[in-house]
C-alpha cells in the first residue's frame, strides 16, 4: 500500500505509521526470541568491552612473574597483593646480611613480608598516593568550577537576549576545536612567567577553561528544555530571578548537571599532556605518574595495573552514583542541542 510507504519515508512526519516492528508482534514467540537474542548480544558486547578492565584487575593481583608469564595465566595463579604493595611503597633492596636479619624478625607486618619475599625493605610511602590526591583536588575543583560557571553562562544564554548570542556560543565552542597539544608550549611559557608552573591552581584554571565550552553547551541544551514559565511563575509569585533559579530551575536541571559533571570530570581526570608539561612534582597528577611506576630490573606490570585500577575507582564511583541521571541526561537534553 503506497500510502504506507509514503508515510514511512517522509522524515519530518513524526507519527508516520507502519513499520515492521508492529508486524513482528504478530507472532508472540518470535518476539520473545528476538528479545532473548538482544539480551544475550548485549551481554556479549559488554563482556568484550570489559576485557581490558578485567585483565587490569587480574594483573594487579598477580606476582611479577605471573604477570609476564607466557602463555598468560587467567586462573592458575596465586593471587597476591604484591602489586599494590609495590605501588604504594618505596623500597630498597636488602643485601644478603640484612636480608638474613630481616627474615629472623617476627614483628613484620604483612606488607613488609611481601616486600621481603622480593628481597626488599619498605622505606616509605610512594609518590602515587600524593599524586592521586592531586588528581582528586585538581579534577574535582576544576569540574565544580566548570559546572557552576557553565551553569550561570548557559542560563544567561538560554534565558536572556545576549547580543551576538550565536557568535559567542560559537566562540566558546571554538576553544575546543584546536588540539590541546598545540597550545601546550605557549601555556608552558606563560605559566612559567606567572608562577603557575607546577601549582594546583594552574591546572585547575586550565581544566576549568577547557571544560567550560563543554559545560556551557551541554547545560544550555538542558536549560532550554525547561520551560521558562516555571521561573516566570515564581517571579510573579514574589521571588527574585536568582531565587527562582535556585528553587525552581536547579531541581529540574539535576539530570543535566549530573551528566555534565561526569563528562567534565572524566576529561579533567584523564588529562595527560598538560599535566605532563606543566607539572613536575608538587602538583603532578596521576595520569603522568602511572607510566613511571618502574620497578628495579624490569617493568612492574602488576604495580602498574594496580595503579591504573586505583586510578579508575574514583570516576567509577562518581559515575555510579550519578548513573540514573546520566542515562536520562545523555538520552534526552544534550543530544538534541
Amino acid at each position, binding site marked *: 500500500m503506497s500510502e504506507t510507504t509514503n508515510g514511512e519515508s517522509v522524515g519530518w512526519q513524526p507519527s508516520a505509521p507502519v513499520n515492521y516492528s508492529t508486524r513482528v508482534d504478530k507472532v508472540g514467540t518470535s518476539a520473545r526470541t528476538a528479545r532473548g537474542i538482544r539480551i544475550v548480544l548485549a551481554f556479549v558486547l559488554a563482556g568484550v568491552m570489559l576485557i581490558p578492565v578485567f585483565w587490569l584487575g587480574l594483573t594487579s593481583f598477580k606476582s611479577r612473574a605471573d604477570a609476564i608469564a607466557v602463555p598468560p595465566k587467567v586462573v592458575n595463579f596465586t593471587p597476591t597483593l604484591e602489586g599494590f604493595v609495590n605501588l604504594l611503597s618505596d623500597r630498597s633492596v636488602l643485601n644478603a646480611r640484612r636480608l638474613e636479619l630481616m627474615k629472623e624478625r617476627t614483628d613484620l607486618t604483612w606488607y613488609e613480608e611481601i616486600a621481603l619475599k622480593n628481597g626488599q625493605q619498605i622505606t616509605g610511602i610512594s609518590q602515587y598516593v600524593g599524586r592521586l590526591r592531586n588528581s582528586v583536588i585538581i579534577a574535582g575543583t576544576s569540574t565544580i568550577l566548570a559546572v557552576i560557571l557553565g551553569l550561570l553562562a548557559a542560563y544567561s544564554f538560554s534565558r536572556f537576549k545576549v547580543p551576538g548570542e550565536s557568535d559567542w556560543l560559537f566562540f566558546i565552542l571554538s576553544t575546543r576545536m584546536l588540539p590541546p597539544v598545540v597550545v601546550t608550549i605557549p601555556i608552558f611559557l606563560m605559566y612559567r612567567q606567572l608562577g603557575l608552573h607546577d601549582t594546583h591552581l594552574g591546572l585547575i584554571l586550565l581544566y576549568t577553561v577547557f571544560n567550560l565550552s563543554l559545560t556551557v553547551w551541554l547545560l544550555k541544551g538542558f536549560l532550554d528544555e525547561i520551560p521558562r*514559565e*516555571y521561573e*516566570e*511563575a515564581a*517571579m510573579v*509569585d514574589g521571588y*527574585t530571578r536568582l531565587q527562582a533559579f535556585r528553587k525552581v530551575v536547579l531541581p*529540574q536541571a539535576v539530570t543535566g548537571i549530573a551528566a555534565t559533571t561526569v563528562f567534565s570530570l572524566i576529561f579533567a581526570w584523564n588529562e595527560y599532556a598538560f599535566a605532563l608539561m606543566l607539572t613536575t612534582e608538587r602538583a603532578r597528577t596521576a595520569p603522568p605518574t602511572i607510566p613511571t611506576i618502574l620497578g628495579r630490573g624490569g617493568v612492574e606490570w602488576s604495580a602498574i595495573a594496580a595503579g591504573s585500577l586505583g586510578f579508575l575507582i574514583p570516576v567509577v564511583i562518581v559515575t555510579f552514583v550519578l548513573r540514573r541521571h546520566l542515562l536520562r541526561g545523555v538520552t534526552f537534553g544534550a543530544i538534541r542541542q
Partner: protein
Amino acid sequence: MANVELRGISKRFRGVTALRDVSFTVADGEFFVLLGPTGAGKTTTLRVIAGLEKQDGGSVLFDGGAVDSRSPAERDVAFVFQQYSLYPTMTVFDNLAFPLRSPLRKLDNTEITRRVTEAAEKLRIGHLLQRKTERLSGGEMQRVSIGRAIVRQPRVFLMDEPLSNLDAKLRESLRVELEHIQKKQQSTTLFVTHDQVEALTLADRIGVLREGKLIQVAAPRDIYDKPANLFVAQSVGTPRINLFPSTYSDGSVRVADSPIALPFSQNGLPVHFTLGVRAEDVTPGQGDQRGEIALVEPLGVETILHIRSGDVTLLSMVSGMTHYRLGEAISFGIDQDRLHFFDAKGDRIDVEQGR
C-alpha cells in the same frame, strides 16, 4: 482587588511590532477577556502587565498608579499559565504554598496552611495536597495552577489560556467553575484566549485584538450583535457568520451570484458592501427565498443546514434534529432586523432601520 489601566502600550520584538498603542481599563472586580488569534499580542499584553516583559512605550497603572518600574514580584499579580507552571519537584501543597513563602510575604505556617486548605477546598483538590504534581491529570494540574493564584489574594488575576490544553469536557466544566468563583469573589481578572466560546461565556467585557491592535472593546452581547468590523464578526459565533458581497438597488439588498434579495429601505447603504447574516437568523421552511439543501450536519442540540441558493451557500442553524434531506428544494427566510453591513474596508456600517 484593583483596577488595571493600560495607556498606549506598544512593544516591538526584533523589529516586529507586537503591540501598537493598546489602551484599555479593567474595572475593579471585572472579568475582562482578550480575544484574538495566535500572534495577536494577547499574551504579550498579559506579560507586560505582569512585568515579565518591558513595554517600549506607554504605561501600566494599577489603581491609578504607574507600576512600570516595579518587578513582577512587586506588582502583586497572580499569573496562571497555559501549562508548565507547576513545579514538578514539589507536592501540590508546596506548590500552593510556594507564593506564600516568598520573601516578600513571609507568612507563618499556620496562616499558610489555612490559606492553602481553603483554596484547595474551593477548587476541590483537597485530597491531592500530598501528591507530587507529576502524578496529576491535566485538569487537576490546572486546578492547582488556579489555586496557586487564589491563595495569593493578589491585586489582579492574569490568566493565559489556562483551559486550552484540557480536553473538551474538562475545559467546559472548569470554565463554568472558574466563572462561578470569579463572580463570587469579584476578583479583577484579565483572561486571554483564542477561543470565542470562552470569551463570550466568561467575559463581562471582551477586547478583540488583532496584529497588536485593539479593535473593539465591548460586552459579549455587543461584540456578537454589533461587531465593529468583518474580523470581529468572524471571530465570534459558531458556525461562522455568513458573508456575501452584495449590492443595494431598487430598495433591496441583493446578494451577488444569487437570487437572494431582501427588501430594505434605508438611506446610506453604499452600492457595494458585504452582507453578514448569522446562521441562526436564517430560518428554513418559511420566507420567500429559495434554495436547496446542500448538506445536513446534525449536532444533536441543533442542526447546521447548508443551503445552496444560486452560486452561494448559506449556513443555517436550527434547533434539534431535522427532517431535511439532501437536494431538497426549500424556502427560507432571513431575519431582516439582524443584518450586518460592512463597507469595502470591512468596517461596520451602522444603519438605522427605516422600514
